[in-house]
């Protein structure tokens, strides 16, 4: 009986069980806490691809004030940001730069496609210089329709993104 308990394979099993328990015990609350932090601290990159930037400016104005959700507009470097809001038209000249900005951002990073242009190309469906949407360049998490979307729509899109982050794993 006792021998069985202390035989090496069993011990191994105990140890792995213990570590499982530990990971279970830590992982979920840790993920919860960290996702909570990520939700309320989305710093968008300052990359303006189209005219939706006007309404993005309005979203950080005193009337809508996205800083309530911890978003800081006009933030300096892309190295400290976690969110690209693709602000409208992705032209063929801008697309490589957009990709590069996305690549250079640190993980974890999220993308919101704002405006009809960034979703499907919108008005510029037949233009020779506009890509049909940002999702051919970067993976998009949330689509915010409108031309330009109202700031409320953008904020609602951010809520959707928060919901998504909440469900995601931290690593």
């Amino acid at each position, binding site marked *: 009986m006792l021998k069985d308990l202390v035989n090496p394979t069993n011990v191994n099993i105990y140890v792995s069980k213990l570590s499982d328990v530990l990971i279970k015990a830590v992982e979920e609350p840790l993920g919860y806490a960290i996702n909570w932090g990520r939700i309320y601290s989305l710093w968008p990159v300052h990359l303006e691809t189209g005219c939706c930037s006007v309404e993005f400016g309005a979203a950080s104005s*005193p*009337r809508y004030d996205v800083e309530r959700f911890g978003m800081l507009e006009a933030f300096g470097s892309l190295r400290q940001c976690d969110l690209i809001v693709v602000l409208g038209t992705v032209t063929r000249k801008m697309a490589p730069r957009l990709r590069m900005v996305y690549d250079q951002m640190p993980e974890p990073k999220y993308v919101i496609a704002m405006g*009809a242009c960034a*979703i499907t*190309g919108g008005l510029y469906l037949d233009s020779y210089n506009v890509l049909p949407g940002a999702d051919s360049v970067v993976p998009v998490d949330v*689509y*915010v*329709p*409108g031309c330009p979307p109202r700031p409320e729509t953008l904020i609602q899109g951010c809520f959707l993104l928060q919901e998504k982050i909440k469900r995601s794993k931290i690593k």
Partner: protein
Amino acid sequence: MNTATGFIKAIQSGTKHIVMKRFTLRYPEEKLKFTGDGYQFDPKKGVGIAGTRGRHILFHDKCTGCQLCAIACEGIAEAITMVKVDEQWKQNKKSIMPQIDYGKCVFCGFCVDACPFYALYMTNDYELSAYTKTHLIYTPAQLAVKPRDDGEVEIKMGKRGAYHGR
């Protein structure tokens, strides 16, 4: 001296604002009130009902499937496609109705102007964000849903500046 007065004035102006009312609209809790029940242009009177331009609303009992809205939109964003619906309406023999892709629509309202039967209106529903593009395509059935009308605040002028209030 000029410099000093400049700074003092600036500090005055800045500190004055600390006691002013906040202008912020606390969006998820408060929503803006929009006048009218939808955007529509009345060609006879030449006068329109002002309202916000959000998602469309389609009155199935009025739409005849004439495709004029789709034609109007064709040169703009190609957001409208006519789809078959299961319903039977006597004014709509072909049983086709507009389906709007909000990934393309630019909310210009020209389709509303074009509709001769007052079947298409624009409402104050702007909360349209979605996770995928397919969620943005609104079928006629979805378009028929009346939006919630729960906005009640608007800009008010007070003694301590403008604010949002009921």
